[in-house]
């Protein structure tokens, strides 16, 4: 990446991967990638080598999130550099394998872009997940996608917080892009969710093609939701949950949560209110996989980022 005449230059994005089945029960990505592995015409672009890839085949086979450990948390430096061996958890071995094929993470040989396809039980609609506010290539891509699918909505979640950030499978690439579409139950394939994900990928690949052909993208403003903190369920001394996401909050992803608003409802029907001092925008509300990660929802704050003009180096 370099700057010239206020343009930020990036290398051509020649090698692109589409990951599905990072969580084996998130069916849109599994189905799309299986389709494209069989027939990749839809994802081909003239200037791009696109590879569709199932990251966690054992979990996909069992239709479970993971076998030993969450693959989408497994790409830590410790795991990637651990000596190989069969006593490593399955997903750690997979992470090392994926890092060999699509990385190494952090090196010039790593893939240019990886799209990682996910579903959520939360009512998040179409969400793009950004890991760095300084990745102007990704910011421009996300701006392009949002404009292309308007009036349908696609929001951007920025997860750059050092405590909330995690070592995702897509983080192997120079430009990691998470795609999260919901609500969809685990193990279920909903036609509308599947088609929405497909359309977003189409526009993403179109953007990359245009970029590789030399198109300059002028500076633009991108609205993002910056992740602030995770909020757990109220629990008793034994760690059992004692309240549920309140009906007023349930399905209210991206809607303002104001101080005093209902947050949780106990099994007895009592309301627990939000005690924070300012309005936040909650997301990942009542995601099935996050009960074990002590997360009822994540709070975010709205921000507008300025994406520099970009063009191919």
């Amino acid at each position, binding site marked *: 990446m370099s700057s010239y005449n206020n343009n930020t230059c990036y290398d051509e994005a020649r090698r692109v991967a589409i990951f599905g089945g990072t969580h084996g029960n998130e069916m849109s990505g599994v*189905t799309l990638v*299986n*389709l494209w592995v069989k027939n990749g015409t839809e994802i081909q672009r003239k200037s791009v080598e696109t590879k569709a890839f199932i990251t966690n085949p054992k979990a996909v086979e069992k239709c479970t999130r993971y076998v030993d450990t969450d693959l989408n948390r497994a790409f830590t430096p410790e795991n990637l550099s651990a000596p190989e061996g069969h006593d490593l958890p399955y997903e750690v071995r997979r992470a090392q394998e994926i890092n060999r094929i699509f990385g190494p993470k952090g090196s010039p040989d790593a893939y240019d872009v990886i799209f990682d396809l996910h579903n959520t*039980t939360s009512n998040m609609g179409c969400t793009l997940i950004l890991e760095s506010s300084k990745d102007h290539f990704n910011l421009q891509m996300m701006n392009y996608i949002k404009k292309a699918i308007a009036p349908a909505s696609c929001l951007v979640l920025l997860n750059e917080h050092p405590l909330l950030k995690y070592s995702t499978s897509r983080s192997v690439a120079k430009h990691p892009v998470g795609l999260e579409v919901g*609500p*969809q*139950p*685990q*193990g*279920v*394939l*909903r*036609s*509308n969710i*599947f088609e929405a994900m497909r359309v977003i990928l189409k526009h993403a690949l179109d953007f990359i093609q245009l970029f590789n052909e030399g198109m300059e993208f002028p500076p633009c403003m991108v609205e993002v939701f910056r992740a602030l903190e995770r909020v757990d369920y109220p629990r008793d001394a034994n760690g*059992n*949950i004692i309240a*549920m*996401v*309140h*009906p007023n909050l*349930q399905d209210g992803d991206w809607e303002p949560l104001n101080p005093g608003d209902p947050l949780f*409802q106990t*099994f*007895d*029907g009592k309301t627990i209110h939000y005690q924070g001092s300012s309005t936040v925008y909650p997301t990942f509300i*009542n995601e*099935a*996989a996050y*009960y074990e990660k002590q997360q009822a929802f994540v709070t975010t704050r709205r921000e507008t980022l300025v994406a520099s003009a970009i063009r191919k180096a």
Partner: protein
Amino acid sequence: MSACLKFDTKKAKEEGHQEEGSLTKTTKMDCVSLPPLSKFAICGGTHGNEMTGIHLLRHLQKHKVEKAGSVSITTVLSNPRAIDACKRYIDTDLNRCFTHTLLRTPITDSSPYELQRAHELNAIVGPKGSEEAVDLICDLHNTTANMGLCVIFNSTDLMALHIYKYIKSKITSVPVRAIDTREPISENYSLDSVGKYGFSFEVGPQPNGVLRADVFNVMKEAVDLTIEWIQQFNSGVTFDGGEAETYCPVNKVDYPRDPTTNEITAAIHPELQDNDFKPLQPGDPIFQSFAGETVKHEGKGLHPVFINECAYYEKRTAFILAEKITVTFPSICVKKDCGV
């Protein structure tokens, strides 16, 4: 329909009960009197990832709900290992293990976990078919399908039918419907067939592993109303019979599949998705293939249920087609001379 009941088909004369003209034009049916219900079992976690029943039972256990008037209440977490793993089952679907044949087949250490557990549950709330069995079982389930509150039972079970009628008259926040399994008792494989009377509550939509407050509140209200009904029944209230609309499963429809790999090649069509119980006519779209083609319904106009239920992919079921049938049933009251 005739009062064909599991136990005690003796009809008793009405005692001072005034008909309010609420019966249908078809028949004037005598009130059926039955012994009081003294043992009621509520089961949850029969599928370990259907969260509402699990948490509702824990809540009842925490508050030591063991008795309501003259009825004793037993709460049972049916599949503890599946609950711990937050999975539907460990080895095999527990809610398919309760036929007479399976309950009589001796189990060994190498038997599937759920078959062993079914025998244990049969000892706790059964034995099925015996006098010792609990009077009434209510089994709590969730579905990923948009089915509101369903009461699932065999319409020969007069208790279940009346409880359904009572709940339907009281719950207004979601649609309340009846699914009539018409399964003869010995072939009935579900846990709720172990008691003398029994039914299941199925509430959706809710993803596996998720606990929604609105779904919990509906299930809790339905269970509370059931307990209320039992107390009223035991204390001598006569519940009017009448007519009820029920949905009787006719056949299941599988997803289109690739003949070599068996993988599904289409998803439920957006126009069918979430439209459980709405009439499906020949020519209506049912699937959308991954290539974008529409597959249409052929055959009788029926009512689809369990549309896109997660657990049914492996049972080769995209949805179940049901026929809407109106059943007529008699009034019911407690048998007063029955000592308990």
